[in-house]
């Protein structure tokens, strides 16, 4: 009897011990679907038009669910829903029909599509009766924002109309997609484009300051102020090089480079070509200008023609001084090299945008015994020109050449503005170094530029 009671007592104690052990084992494993309780929803959900864009985009932000990375730790993702009017299905079916249509049917469908697109803002005002929630995206756990980006192309299924009411909600979702917590609905919110990108204010200020500096120094130069610029050996050698060619009775080869007419280096080269062509016309030396780009060729022809006119020798100009070769890099180089080795110019000038062919040109010119003056803003090619040419204009010296050659006060004035801007950059770089070392983030943030 006593044994029987003892066994029963032990059994009951064991039962209670087991129950207690289970209670103390912590929250249920969230991978076990049966045991997941609903998570808490996100809070403080806000929706606003995305900043600094062309419109068609809404940014959502929220406070994370308390079960995301804490609490029950059951939230794996957030699903974002947008309220979409049923009317959009009608529009989509018109788009689908348009995909395979041709001729007049396609024309009619396009008209219907455009009429439907114009009705989108109105359709969105039928919230909440004439539509439903559609999932538009997912954010991972830990993410507290989402950007709903549409396109501005009205024909696209992803078109998101501006000035239209949108409504959003965000679901906190667990491992079981059925177990989720929806947030409060937020809206109406409208998207629209901004007229100024505030993320680029530092660039705007820099452009304004530089522009004002340029105008200031140009004005000073116009009033007759003396502006000193340091001498450049390459520029000073241009006249001597032209004289050498005249004495030897050999031509001058001028290569404008491989840039297009929109490249600043090429534009700077046009100005130098104009000055060289004027001297060449005065001395009646032969000039050869092979071109890589057809637009560059047309501008160069006008430049040389005007220079000959300025020198009072319009009859000496003929169209074939400046000619197009090819728009293939190495084919162009092969042609110019051939010209160098046949014509044996006394002077070669390489002014503009150059690439890998720079050393081939310069070495061949050295082989032909020419004096060579080069100028390029392509940093990679500078070492080759420096090694193989007699004089080299480095980077911005090419842009400054026009001011040097003409010595016009206005051009010199703009050069001084560049110098002062460079001084400002040096000072700001030093201050930036100090700020980065001392962690003055406010100062650093003043200069940060966002998209």
């Amino acid at each position, binding site marked *: 009897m006593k044994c029987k009671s003892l066994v029963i007592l032990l059994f009951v104690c064991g039962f209670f011990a087991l129950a207690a052990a289970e209670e103390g084992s912590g929250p249920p494993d969230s991978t076990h679907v049966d045991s997941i309780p609903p998570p808490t929803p996100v809070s403080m959900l806000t929706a606003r038009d995305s900043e600094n864009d062309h419109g068609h985009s809404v940014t959502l932000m929220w406070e994370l669910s308390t079960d995301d990375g804490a609490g029950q730790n059951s939230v794996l993702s957030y699903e974002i829903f947008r309220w979409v009017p049923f009317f959009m299905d009608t529009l989509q079916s018109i788009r689908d029909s348009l995909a395979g249509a041709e001729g007049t049917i396609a024309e009619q469908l396009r008209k219907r599509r455009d009429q439907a697109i114009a009705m989108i803002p109105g359709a969105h005002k039928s919230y909440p009766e004439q539509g439903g929630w559609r999932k538009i995206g997912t954010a991972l756990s830990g993410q507290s924002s989402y950007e709903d980006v549409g396109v501005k192309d009205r024909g696209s299924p992803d078109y998101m109309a501006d000035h239209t009411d949108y409504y959003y909600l965000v679901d906190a979702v667990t491992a079981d997609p059925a177990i989720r917590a929806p947030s409060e609905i937020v809206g109406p919110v409208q998207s629209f484009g901004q007229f100024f*990108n505030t993320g680029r204010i530092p660039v705007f200020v820099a452009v304004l300051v*530089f522009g004002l500096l340029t105008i200031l120094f140009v004005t000073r130069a116009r009033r007759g102020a003396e502006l000193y610029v340091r001498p450049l050996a390459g520029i000073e050698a241009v006249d001597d090089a032209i004289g050498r060619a005249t004495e030897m009775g050999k031509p001058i080869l001028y290569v404008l480079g491989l840039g297009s007419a929109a490249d600043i280096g090429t534009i700077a080269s046009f100005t130098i070509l104009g000055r060289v062509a004027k001297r060449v016309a005065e001395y009646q030396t032969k000039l050869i200008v092979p071109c890589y780009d057809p637009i560059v060729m047309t501008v160069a022809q006008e430049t040389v023609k*005007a220079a000959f006119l300025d020198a009072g020798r319009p009859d000496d100009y003929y169209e074939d001084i400046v000619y*197009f070769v090819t728009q293939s890099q190495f*084919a162009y180089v092969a042609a110019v090299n051939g010209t160098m080795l046949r014509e044996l110019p006394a002077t070669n000038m390489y002014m503009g945008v150059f690439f890998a062919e720079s050393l081939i040109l310069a070495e061949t010119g050295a082989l032909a015994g020419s004096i060579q003056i080069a100028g390029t803003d392509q940093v990679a090619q500078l070492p080759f020109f420096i090694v193989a040419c007699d004089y080299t204009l480095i*980077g911005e010296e090419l842009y400054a050449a026009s001011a040097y050659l003409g010595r016009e006060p206005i051009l010199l004035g703009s050069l001084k503005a560049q110098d002062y801007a*460079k001084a400002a950059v040096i000072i700001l770089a030093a201050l930036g170094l100090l700020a980065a070392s001392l962690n003055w983030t406010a100062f650093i943030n003043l200069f940060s530029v966002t998209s």
Partner: protein
Amino acid sequence: MRRQIPLALVFIFGVFMIFQYFVPHESSEWIYEFLLDWIYIIGIFALALGIWSLIRVSVAKIKTRKSGWGYPVITMAGLFLMILFGFTGYRDGSWGFHFMTAEGLSNPMFRNFFDYIMIPIQSTMFALLAFFIASAAYRAFRARNVLASLLLVAALVVMLRFNPYLGPFGTIIADTASWLLNVPNLAAKRAIIIGIGLGMVGTALKIILGIERGYMGKG
């Protein structure tokens, strides 16, 4: 008038493109995309002018039998041959006039010219660089003074960077070469790039304000 209109156009569009960078609104984007389309159109017309210039110069050299007149013959032959291949081809079991250029490089004659003439010739020209670098380095890297000696040593270190036969010195040289590229080279290049950037902005402003007029054909 002939000069004022281009200057006015340059000013208007130049200022617009500056402001377009700061205005993300759709209306500015629309004008920007419209302008981009026009650049393509102008480029095509300019190409036609360029080809006409090339033909004229080459034919003049051939007519006058100028020294080296064989080269323009080859140039013209290449030009007209490719045009011919663009308009004739083998299709539907026969040779004839078809507009083959629409097929691009799937046209066998284009493909052959590209694979067996264009690629070898362009690769050969690029390969010339190796020889010219050798001769330029031989001529230029002389320790004439302190700066030239520094240049020489830096060049030697960077060239030996990939060499696997230097044993324990290889790592020292590779690290020195990396330091040279990432520190003094970087500093100098940044300075040059900043100068070029400011020069570009300055020149662009001069063009927009009509101070720089070299592109118009008169310096």
